[in-house]
């Protein structure tokens, strides 16, 4: 069941990236390289089940999203990268939770996404935990996992 849900989170990320920013994310052909500017973005949720979704991302993915959604003449895309990644995770989480069968009187609550920079060692140690689904987003690293899932 957990494997199915993890797949569902990964599929929700791929769908959100495609629909928001026309970016394809595919399983990488080789292990993800540590990006120069690595970020961890997190969102929590509670309702019929509680949990958290973690997104590891190269900040360049955020720049790519901002460029794609705001147009090629958007000069402030680098400054919007983290905001764009937070919105990507927000939409991913909403898409994922919308697949749960509704429970009357128990709607999901999502937290506001938070972002923090990561050093190389932390990036590699998190990926080594083995529960992240890695992606290559047009040459940039991205990985997602469903964490701390518990019945409410």
């Amino acid at each position, binding site marked *: 069941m957990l494997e199915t849900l993890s797949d569902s989170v990964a599929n929700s990320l791929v*769908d*959100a990236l495609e*629909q*928001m920013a026309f970016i394809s994310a595919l399983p990488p052909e080789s292990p993800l390289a540590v990006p120069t500017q690595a970020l961890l973005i997190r969102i929590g949720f509670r*309702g019929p089940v509680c949990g958290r979704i973690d997104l590891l991302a190269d900040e360049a993915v955020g720049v790519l*999203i*901002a460029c794609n*959604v*705001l*147009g090629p003449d*958007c000069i402030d895309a680098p400054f*919007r990268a983290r*905001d*764009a990644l*937070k*919105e990507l995770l*927000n*939409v991913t*989480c*909403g*898409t*994922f*939770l*919308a697949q*749960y069968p*509704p429970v*009357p009187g128990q*709607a*999901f609550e*999502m937290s*506001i996404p938070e972002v923090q920079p990561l050093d190389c060692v932390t990036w590699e140690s998190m990926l080594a935990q083995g529960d992240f689904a890695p992606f290559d987003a047009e040459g940039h690293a991205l990985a997602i996992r469903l964490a701390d899932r518990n019945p409410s």
Partner: protein
Amino acid sequence: MGYRFLIVDDSATTRAIIRRTIQMAQVPADKVLEASNGMDALRLLAGEPIDLVLADLHMPEMDGVEMTRRLLADPAICHIPVVILSAEPSAERLEQLKRDGVRGYLRKPFTPEGVRNLITQTLEACHA
């Protein structure tokens, strides 16, 4: 004559997407204002004539539900329609919003066509 819109979302990227979507949809717009939460939106609405508010649900300081509740309770601005653009997963909650006075909603990720349809249907209903 164009419409005056207020976009309320804590994500500057999303506000820019909605602004661009309004332009792409060729909805006549005289003015597009932005606020990053419900509190800022209510301050703007007190001094600016607005035809339609497009708001997120989940925002810091004041969310879209509370903003809509206060707007509807204020006789000076309660006529301004509010539509919700949100990643909210619960269809039940979104339907509840309509019963509470929100004119329509669209779940993120949205398409330009979806935004255009929501805007035109809401404005047509208000001016019918």
